[in-house]
């Protein structure tokens, strides 16, 4: 993959972004629809002088990433929904130990083994992960350029805040090939930033530790409060969203992320042709969720249409942001159902006439 204009697959874009960001450790386990990532990593990572390991389970993948991160390396693992469930234990440990890493979830339908079709069924397990009182940053790309850009950015975000960062994609974004213009001249800002906390051998110092076990009375409570301070800083500094179509003073707002946001852009055009003006609010960070920006945008419209490829997960955060349930109209397709732009438009038309 080179710089400039090219036809690439979402899963491949993630591999190249990780390598460009200085990721030199990858462990992953096969699961559809993200197999191109470990497959490509198996030869691209050694080309870059890094370590590729085909882990024997997702538990092993995430715990290898834990070890590599503890040792100071930029590390990544990728999976799809059922595999992410298995990783939740490790994600919680990494959050507790404040270890940076990039995790990619190319979502498929669930629950259980579900199917291998694109889905947004894991919004909950991305923004409300694992056991214990913690958060991870979650970025939701909606095209192939963003699969590259967000993955690249995720490594700096992870190091900056010592936190796991998840890219929440889906089977469509993973498998889609798109002609994109890639700027590969960017250099990761924090690649060479010191990691004094990392385990590199106690050279000229006492031994240090990476732990999440805090048994002294009050120690864990303090740790949780310290983590919360960090989370507040992330909310303040890193909350991102896209707001489109507001210049035309729309009466209605669509709120959608990832693939549903992409489809909704088509719906906006169809609606415009039918004389219905809509705007689009697309959260880019699902955690931290852009509550304030959505609250402001929602004030300017009569209704907020929430579209998801699930039966209503992000809509809970939309309701919190908007603060007026009578304004919310939800439409979702679970189990691998991908709505068409026309289908979403018909839903809007049915509610506004």
């Amino acid at each position, binding site marked *: 993959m080179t710089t400039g204009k090219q036809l690439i697959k979402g899963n491949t874009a993630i591999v190249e972004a990780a390598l460009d960001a200085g990721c030199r450790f990858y462990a992953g386990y096969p699961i559809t629809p993200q197999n191109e990532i470990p497959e490509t990593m198996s030869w691209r990572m050694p080309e870059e002088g890094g370590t590729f390991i085909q882990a024997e389970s997702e538990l092993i993948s995430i*715990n*290898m*990433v834990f*070890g590599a991160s503890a*040792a100071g*390396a930029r590390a990544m693992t990728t999976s799809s929904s059922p595999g992410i469930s298995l990783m939740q234990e490790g994600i919680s440990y990494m959050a507790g130990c404040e270890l940076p890493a990039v995790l990619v979830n190319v979502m498929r339908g669930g629950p259980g083994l579900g199917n291998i079709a694109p889905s947004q069924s894991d919004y909950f397990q991305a923004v409300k992960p694992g056991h214990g009182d913690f958060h991870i940053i979650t970025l939701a790309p909606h095209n192939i350029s963003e699969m590259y850009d967000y993955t690249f950015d995720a490594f700096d975000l992870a190091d900056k805040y010592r936190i796991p960062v998840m890219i929440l994609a889906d089977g469509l974004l993973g498998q889609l090939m798109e002609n994109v213009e890639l700027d590969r001249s960017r250099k990761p800002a924090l690649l060479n930033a010191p990691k004094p906390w990392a385990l590199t051998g106690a050279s000229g110092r*006492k031994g240090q530790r990476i732990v999440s076990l805090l048994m002294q009375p009050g120690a864990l409570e303090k740790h949780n409060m310290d983590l919360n301070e960090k989370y507040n800083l992330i909310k303040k500094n890193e909350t991102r969203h896209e707001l489109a179509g507001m210049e035309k003073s729309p009466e209605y707002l669509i709120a959608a992320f990832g693939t549903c946001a992409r489809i909704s852009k088509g719906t906006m055009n169809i609606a415009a042709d039918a004389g219905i003006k809509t705007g689009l609010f697309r959260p880019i960070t699902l955690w931290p969720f852009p509550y304030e920006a959505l609250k402001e945008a929602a004030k300017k419209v009569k209704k907020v249409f929430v579209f998801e490829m699930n039966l209503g997960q992000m809509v809970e955060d939309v309701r919190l942001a908007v603060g007026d349930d009578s304004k919310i109209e939800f439409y979702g397709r679970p189990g691998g159902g991908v709505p068409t732009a026309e289908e979403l438009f018909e839903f809007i038309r049915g509610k506004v006439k």
Partner: protein
Amino acid sequence: MAEKIVYKKPDSLTDKIFSYCWGCGHSTVHKIIAELIDELGMREKTIAVAPVGCAVFAYDFWNFDTTEAAHGRAPVVATAIKRVHPGHLVFSYQGDGDLASIGMAEIIHTANRGENLTIIFINNTNYGMTGGQMAPTTLIGQKTTTSPAGRNIKQNGYPIKMSEMLAQFESVKYVERVKVTNAASVIKAKKAIKKGFLNQLNGTGFSFIEVLSACPANWRMEPLAAKAHIDGVISKYYPVGLIKDIK
């Protein structure tokens, strides 16, 4: 009169006093590991992985870099650390609940990949930290808090012999079972762990040292009786000695 130092605490131990129970094998094994790391001059190039179990507190006592690992996952955490720092001495220290039960997949695949690591496996035939429940290593008939009538073969199968099992793998280079019940056996245990460390440093590959270790509190025994129990009963089922050594 000039003082002659005949013994001192290893630099690889912190000043914290061991908090393990009286007669527990962990303190002994922690200390011989620290002595060996001093002797090998590796204090500044060692990264250890502590388990979930009593020895999770190992990092309170060792004065070298140590990380925690989720229950059973220590071998794969160690794998990644070793791949990132191939010149360092990396080892995991795990109990039998951690390694032989919840971490079975991790230890088997790490062994089968032939990672250039040293694994120290503390077998005290029960879950120590949680109060003495049955482990896969619990002896037949052994009473624990979850096998109050004694381990029953029909329900629980036979105690797993991890060392003998792992020795079957082509990539496993060195397996030895030792005990820490008296001075002579502690010296042998130290020799075995040293060999495991040297194997890693000279690139020989995967080494596994099983240490039969007393758990007087959960066995409901006095420390000396617990050590005699290892010598007289436990080591009959888990025989000590060299199991595999391939150059």
